[in-house]
């Protein structure tokens, strides 16, 4: 930990989360550093959602500690986490299709311009910043008034990511951003993740697609039945090994041989 650049910005140690008798997370350890993309893989029901929600302040862990920039922290609400710099882009995106890209981009944080005693939304600034940020991400909008509904799924993901980055996210949690996308759009989102990472932001990329993870990930952690099965660095693990870990080992091997290795 001598090199501060590579010190983890978020470090979660032995996190447990119980919902009544259900143990959703049973001792999960995870950390992410600025400028890296740490992929969290897991099958449905592995505890990914609970884990994200614990990290982003929605749930409080039953046991375990979370360190943010080296200090222990307890977020009381997602808003606290957002203010600290942990932004989550959920699968359903939190975009409103009928509203323009600008209105969506600035929703909840609209820039304001004073005219005498009145305060108006500063549309000139809002539009210019939106166009500029979208261009940085490689999307040329027809107009900032364009409704989000007219964008493709991948472009919507990119708007959500650009928004989080612009508003100062230090940690970006992406909840299955590629799961509902086509091949081309997935490639676009993955390249967006790459751009964000190169900008020095810590990216937590949640997915159950091994190929998507390997395309951009620096480290990989597999979650299975509420536990982490270790973290591997890029180049230390093969897609097959990751796939096996996700599925819980043995059964998958058997299944895979019977399907001829196509899973």
């Amino acid at each position, binding site marked *: 930990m001598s090199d501060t650049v590579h010190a983890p910005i978020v470090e979660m140690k032995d996190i447990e989360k119980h919902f009544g008798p259900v143990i959703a997370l049973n001792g999960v350890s995870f950390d992410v550093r600025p400028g890296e993309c740490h992929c969290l893989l897991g099958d449905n029901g592995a505890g990914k959602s609970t884990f994200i929600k614990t990290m982003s302040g929605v749930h409080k862990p039953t046991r375990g500690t979370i360190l943010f920039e080296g200090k222990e922290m307890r977020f009381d609400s*997602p*808003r606290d986490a*957002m203010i600290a710099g942990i932004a989550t882009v*959920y699968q*359903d*995106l*939190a*975009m*409103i*299709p*009928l*509203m323009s890209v600008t*209105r969506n981009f*600035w*929703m*909840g*944080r*609209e820039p*304001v311009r004073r005219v005498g005693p009145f*305060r*108006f*939304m500063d*549309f000139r600034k809002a*539009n*210019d*910043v939106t*166009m*500029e940020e979208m*261009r940085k991400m490689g*999307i*040329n*909008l*027809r*107009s*900032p008034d364009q*409704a989000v*509904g*007219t964008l493709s799924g991948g472009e919507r993901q990119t708007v959500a990511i650009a928004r989080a980055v612009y508003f100062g996210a230090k940690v970006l949690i992406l909840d299955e951003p590629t799961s509902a996308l086509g091949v081309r759009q997935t490639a676009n989102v993955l390249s967006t993740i790459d751009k964000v990472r190169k900008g020095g932001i810590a990216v937590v990329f949640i997915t159950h697609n091994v190929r998507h993870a390997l395309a951009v990930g620096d480290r990989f952690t597999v979650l299975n039945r509420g536990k982490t099965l270790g973290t591997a660095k890029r180049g230390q693990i093969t897609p097959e090994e990751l796939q096996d870990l996700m599925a819980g080992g043995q059964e998958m091997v058997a299944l895979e041989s019977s399907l001829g290795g196509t899973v």
Partner: protein
Amino acid sequence: MSSTGMVDERIKKTSRLRTAFIRPELGAIVGVVAVFLFFAIFAGDSGMFNPQGVLNWSTVSAQFVIIAVGACMLMIAGEFDLSVGSMIGFAGMSIAIMSVTMAWPVWLAILLTFAICMSIGALTGTIVVRTGLPSFIVSLAFLFILRGFTIFFPQVIERRTIIGGISERAEGDWLAPLFGGKVGEGFFRWLAEMDIIATYSRGARAGEPMVSGIPMLIVWALVLVIVAHIVLTRTRFGNWIFASGGDAQAARYVGVPVNRVKIQMFMFTAFCATVFATCQVIEFGSAGADRGLLKEFEAIIAVVIGGALLTGGFGSVIGAALGAIIFGVVQQGLFFAGVESSLFRVFLGVILLFAVILNTYIRRIITGER
């Protein structure tokens, strides 16, 4: 920075026509033009377009506009209020009972009524956001509750359902003219002197201009439209209104106080209903227990004609106002044209159907659904 730079070759150029088409007000603008053309042809020589005629349908339109503005803002925020009509009756009766029966000053009656009605609006809104029930059901309950009280109180206190005598009580009051007065009286007297507008030739008001001024009702309508339009399209709060109606959960994720916005819109709707009621009571000098019947539906229809989506998140105050003008002009125009007035309801139904179909189509264009 401007929007120059590379243009994605895959994005089709959209024609101006198509861009204009997805403006929410378009249908209403076409409707207004059509309605005016229609009556210019069929009632052009009936006096509909002389000063008194214009004042007549403008006043009726302004009534529709006032409640449509409230209903529009609320609908964009994703909610309905079916209690608007009952609220109008309730507010009028409240002013009448306080000022006539209880002999309180009219200004106090008006201010207290505004406070009571807006509190009821806040209560409706709070129940809606706390329980998560559809506002349709909650406000339907208030439709009956308020109408019931509007009949109950005058029955119990005065043994009748119409209370008069407010005009006498309002004389000399400082607040009443803000609702029942007229503006520009000097200007209209001057117009009469110049022989530009007609004067009464006999009777008690001989020599006075036939149109003596613009009723405050119209002024209220204009002010409400302008203020609401600016708030909606040009302010941060306006963005929150769109966001609350577009997707409440998405808005909450980014910190928009959705519940507060919705409750405030219920209060604004109640405010508009009370403005309507106060103008009516001060002008007529009486309050009746059946006032405002069916007004909630007329307001909602005007808003839908104005291009707002019933599902919230999209709409325009200007559109709603135009929708209200279509109503006022048609209702009074049928009278001028000598057509049986019951046809007005047929017209309402037909135009509502057309508007909803058109809106659904526009929504598909905007969101790119197929």
